[in-house]
């Protein structure tokens, strides 16, 4: 039995329903399954349509990239990575929030995670797939991508180079994807079984039946489910730290001034969580609105996530300043120039975009009014992700474009194929996400049900007695 302090805001807002009853577990099932069972609505169709158009355009540019070669991008002899790896790191970073929410918050028994973990995990998986697509895209000979895996082969002892951070990346990303996928899917099984039971259409029944792996809801099954969740959470937790640490090694282990920095691992992890939470917020606010999920995704959720954004954003800001200090303190002229060049060189605009989006904008969340303002949160969540994209761009491009020998100094400008391939990842991501939102339950019903009573017993009762029904905003405000 769990007890939640009544001063906390309720995690699920219980509304008054017909016949003067409060939200029951059955209402939760109804609310969540409605999207899956009902015919697709217009808003969803339009959203998916736009995503598909973007995906189609991106697929054309991707075809050009793969058919003609990487030369379709704006890269050159000096800048060998730009948008490709920027996008890769950006997407991997976005994926981080999902794991943090599902694994770390589970271990820390943060019950508020229950209503957001499903879609955060889905987002993780799609984001990692997008990241992976850039690994494939950026290869000169993508048809030989499997050579980066230590596969047994007929060439004798031909093996991968275990010294290369790119090989570490392969392991890190593939592990991350596998574990996230399993964790996510396992969490889905009880809900899929619920949908199976409710299904009237025989095809749905069959498909969801197949997908739910014969879940019977017995106590034994539930006990195993709980245990397995904990085990997977235990496995995933180190991944939250390791994946972006390893991604940062791509840069940190190199000799390029501006890359060769020991601060990268913690700074990248903080940045990843920062951007991941921002992306979760962006998506959740949309889903919440589209599917009318306000009782499940409350302002309390939004505020908690904003606090995490504030903390990680500040960590990132401190890291930026530390980098500068170290560049000066090291006495290495190349390093010093790299950082001066970031601020005042030809890419100054990218640097200042990064600084204002990542360091200055999250500071608004010191104010509760901002943390609990949905519009401000939505806007800042997008600003943060723009900033985090620029962060990777600044690290990759401004370090490469002016490194050791001035004779090779160049500028990088993207081509339309660069942009198109980035759009491809957006098209892919949103297509996947909208399909997920339509055909799978976006909130973990089973877990939300477990906190329905425990977290809101007192507060819920008080709320339903004294206030009108339906105006959740004023209701929560009244509590404080």
């Amino acid at each position, binding site marked *: 039995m769990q007890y939640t302090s009544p001063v906390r805001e309720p995690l699920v807002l219980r509304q008054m329903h017909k016949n003067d009853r409060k939200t029951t577990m059955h209402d939760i099932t109804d609310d969540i399954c409605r999207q899956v069972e009902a015919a697709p609505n217009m808003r969803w169709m339009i959203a998916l349509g736009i995503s598909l158009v973007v995906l189609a355009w991106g697929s054309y540019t991707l075809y050009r990239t793969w058919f003609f*070669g990487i030369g379709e991008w704006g890269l*050159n002899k000096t800048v*060998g*990575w730009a948008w490709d790896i920027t996008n890769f790191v950006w997407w991997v970073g976005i994926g981080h929030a999902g794991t943090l929410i599902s694994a770390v918050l589970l271990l820390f028994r943060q019950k508020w995670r229950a209503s957001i973990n499903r879609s955060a995990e889905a987002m993780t998986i799609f984001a990692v797939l997008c990241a992976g697509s850039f690994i494939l895209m*950026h290869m*000169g000979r993508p048809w*030989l991508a499997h050579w980066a895996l230590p596969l047994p082969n007929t060439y004798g002892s031909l093996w991968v*180079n275990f010294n290369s951070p790119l090989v570490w990346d392969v392991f890190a990303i593939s592990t991350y994807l596998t574990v996230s996928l399993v964790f996510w899917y396992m969490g889905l099984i009880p809900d899929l079984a619920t949908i199976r039971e409710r299904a009237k259409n025989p095809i749905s029944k069959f498909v969801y039946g197949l997908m739910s792996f014969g879940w019977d809801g017995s106590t034994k099954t539930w006990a195993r489910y709980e245990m397995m969740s904990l085990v997977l959470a235990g496995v995933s937790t180190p991944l939250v730290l390791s994946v972006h640490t390893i991604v940062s090694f791509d840069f940190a282990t190199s000799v390029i001034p501006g890359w060769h920095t020991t601060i990268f691992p913690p700074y990248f992890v903080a940045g990843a969580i920062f951007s991941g939470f921002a992306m979760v917020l962006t998506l959740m606010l949309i889903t919440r609105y589209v599917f009318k999920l306000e009782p499940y995704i409350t302002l309390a959720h939004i505020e908690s996530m904003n606090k995490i954004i504030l903390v990680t954003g500040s960590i990132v800001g401190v890291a930026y300043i530390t980098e500068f200090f170290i560049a000066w303190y090291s006495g*290495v002229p190349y390093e010093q120039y790299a950082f001066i060049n970031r601020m*005042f060189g030809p890419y100054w605009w990218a640097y200042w975009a990064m600084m204002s989006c990542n360091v200055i904008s999250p500071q608004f969340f010191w104010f509760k009014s901002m943390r609990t303002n949905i519009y401000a949160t939505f806007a800042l969540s997008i600003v943060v992700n723009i900033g985090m994209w620029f962060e990777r761009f600044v690290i990759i491009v401004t370090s490469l474009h002016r490194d050791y020998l001035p004779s090779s100094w160049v500028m990088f400008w993207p081509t339309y194929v660069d942009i198109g391939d980035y759009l491809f990842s957006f098209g892919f991501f949103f297509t996947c996400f909208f399909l997920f939102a339509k055909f799978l339950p976006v909130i973990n019903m089973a877990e939300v049900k477990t906190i329905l009573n425990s977290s809101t017993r007192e507060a819920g009762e008080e709320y339903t007695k004294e206030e009108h029904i339906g105006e959740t905003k004023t209701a929560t405000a009244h509590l404080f």
Partner: protein
Amino acid sequence: MMEDSPKKYWKGIEELTNDIDFVKNAENEFAEPLPKHEPNTENNRRDFLKLMGFSVAAVSLAACETPVKYAVPYLNKPENLDPSIPNFYASTFFEGGDYSSILVKTREGRPIKIEGNNLSPINKGKTSAKAQASILGLYDDTRYKGFMVNGKAGKMESIDEEVKKSLESASNIRILSSTIISPSTESIIKDFIKKYPTAKHVQYDSPTVSAHGILQANKESFGVEALPSYDFSKAKVIVSFGADFLGTWLSATEYATQYGKTRKLGKDKKEMSRHYQFETRLSLTGANADYRGAIKPSEEALAVVALYNKLNGGETFANKEVDKLLEKAKNDLQSASGNSLVVSGSNDPAVQMVVNAINNQLGNYGNAIDMSTPSYIRKGNDNAVNAVIDEIIGGGVDTVIFYGVNPVYDHPKGKELKSALSNVKNKISFALAPDETSTLCNFVCPDTHFLESWNDAMPKKGIYTLTQPTITPIFKTRSAQESLLLWSEAKTTNFHDFIKGYWNTNVFKTQTKFKGFANFWTSVLHDGQYLTNATIAEVKEEVTETTKEDKKAETKDAKPKVAGKFSGDAGKAVSEIGTKYKTAGFEMQVYQTQAIGNGSQANNPWLQEMPDPITKACWGNYASISQKTAKEKGITAGYVVKVSAKGMSFELPVLIQPGQADNTVVVAVGYGREVVGQAGKINGKAIGVNVFPLAIDVIEGVSIAKTDKYEEVAQTQTHHTIMGRDIIQETTLAEYVKKPNAGRNYPHVSSPDGIKKPSEITLWKGHKYPNHSWSMVIDLNSCIGCSACTVACQAENNVSVVGKAEVLMRREMHWIRIDRYYSSNESAKSWGEMEEASANPEVTFMPLMCQHCNNAPCETVCPVLATTHSTEGLNQMTYNRCIGTRYCANNCPYKVRRFNWFHYAEDDRFTTVNYTQTNDLGKMVLNPDVTVRSRGVMEKCSMCVQRIQAGKLTAKKEKRHVKDGDVITACAQACPTDAITFGDMNDLNSEVAKALSLKKEMKKGEHGAEDEIIYSITEPRAYQLLEEINVKPQISYLTKIRNKDEKKGKGDANANHGGGEHH
């Protein structure tokens, strides 16, 4: 039953007769022994298995990747031709005024590479970029494929008939040819004139190639209408007025080899020449000068006069700064009297007369200038040429023969000539490929490419060289000489026989070594040249090693040899110059570039893509202006400007050139070819603008105006200053003499244990090179930046050409590049100011290829081990294994790795520029020892690993160790100044070891490890690039040393911050 059958089959008549040989060999599979080329190669079972394993693997791999389409085996193996073993043939290159004696490397019967002939006393085994690239002309698919009549293909025989008929009826024949240095061709033309007495022969050099001024001045001064032999190696002080003698002036390769000698320094040689340059544009030569004054074109003549007057007491030059330099030059010239050299690039006989007078006064004749062995590589007489052109325009000529010239394109009166030609009855051209002139001719009888034909040459008095065919003519062409022989109905119409006959009667008698002509001929053919006895003596004298003291004594005692006494009237010339040249207003100068020259090789993509040594621009010409002029006119780089001069106006993108004289605009000729093959055009339009109509010495009254159009100049380097980094370590001669390690910077790292050398703090275990340790030493002091190495490497290693658009994307593929840095202003304090070059900067060149790091950053990051370290110190690429992540290129601190962004050999978009890899004929130039890289793989300098392998194999076959000189990389081979030395650091006798003063030490093995031999570099000038990051390159650089009195300070190319040695 078979076994019972009495029938018997004999293998041959020998078996029946029981021939002794047959019985002996009856057991063997092959009756005759197989041909053996390698001594003592006994194949044993292991070898067989190895070979079989390899072949199976190779065959199956080949089957997977590239199906062989057109391999046709030899039915009968030609003599002296073994598959995969190259043959070298001595020959001669002479095109656009550029002469070199060469060796042509052929593989399976096709010429694939040109190298210098070491036996040549002129180019001494070295070649220019143009000579290196000339091989592509052979495989140019746009050449004439047969005889043409009135623009249509015709039959050789019938055209000959027609030509002969028209020649017979002609009343006024003119032969307009380029300079002919072939004595037998001259004799053929003489015979032709005998047959057709109305014929007149005029030799024509393009305006930018012509040495009319020198020829005329020498005729007046010495009675010899020829170029002298210059020897820059004998000059302690060199003063040049606009003569780009290292780049494009006369015999630049020859002069570069001589000049290189004076710039070499070492333990025993602590002196070098001092070089002054006065010029308008920043030329390659000016970039190498110790002191350089920027003057306007009109001032070049006046500066010569000012120097002359200074030597004779009095007069100052208008420009104060230049005047100071002239004064200094004068003092240096006087103190080095007899050992100096003054040259001028002017084509005005009066100016050259004053130059002759100066040299005469300084006693340079007989030392650095030798009139007794005149050079014949320029014979064009501008006056005679202009007379003929005027004659044609005037309609006084009914037959013209164009041989190796394209006056419609490159004569200032080309346009008028073009319209006049329609009135000329018979126009005959010997052009190889369609050009502006040949397309106007009614008969085109294409000449053979020099690699397909016989020829001879006499570049200098006493030096004869031969050209021999290295392949049968690819198209239905015939050498021009044979055409002339045929038309003049000579006895022998075979040019080969004619040359032999000519040599038998004229040359053979000048020698005493060989009794029979056949032996003499074979020897000349083998060596590629024949030096008359007098010349041999002279060359020997030069080669014989004498001690320094002896040499000094010699030069003091030696009586100068003078051919004819100087008898010119300098006073008259001076006054002539005084009235002719007035400096006022905005001026223009045209020049020819290192790569494209006079435009005859405009269809050569290697040359089009070769970055100009100074501007680093390629694929087109541009209008250069100085920084100050740009600021005054409000023009920024990349904008198109409209230049108007002498009734002609054209638009070109602007390039802001530090070091150029203010109020001048400089444009290169050789571009704007309207009738040219595919590579000479972009999207069907001529590249650049033809400024030959303006190719006269001084063009005044020029106006330049900014337009709204923007067009980027394709440059391979866009950042021009060194940003105060220790990349180029340099000093002055005086400093170097005091302290041999002057200018060196020793980076240091602070550690808890105190200050350490970067190499002392390392995670790396290092590599062991038990056999060889291949390495290079690059002397920054002798590298003149000529870029011959870049093209040589491109030819050797099948480096793709990518075209202008891709160069603009900064994706050129060159494996060896030459970084050119300008010094920035001494007062520069901020990073931004350091980015700007100073108005008249010091220039440094740094050849940069893969540094073959021992602690290679590229090797650790490759996920698939596509780039690994060899046991001989090479960083090697396995193209097959590369998946193209480009991580290695990102992590390369030298940025020398090149990525195949596209499939250059198969992508349709590159067929016009990259025809050496895409076109069936072009592919014949590919080096079969080097893979053509596919799309998506990384490539870079391999230190010519195929040559290393070949050298090792030769040594192995001869059962000996590899000697120094067995292996030489393409870049080092071509380098005219020997700035690049390649060799084995494990061989203490190698040139590399000497250049680095290697010391061999035994290092006691610690903790039970084996003792180790360590070779340490003790040369004080040697340094490795970016020593501070401890990647330990195999390649070392030697400091740049300028022969200057004062050293530049802060903000300069060599900002010596925190220098000093830490040991």
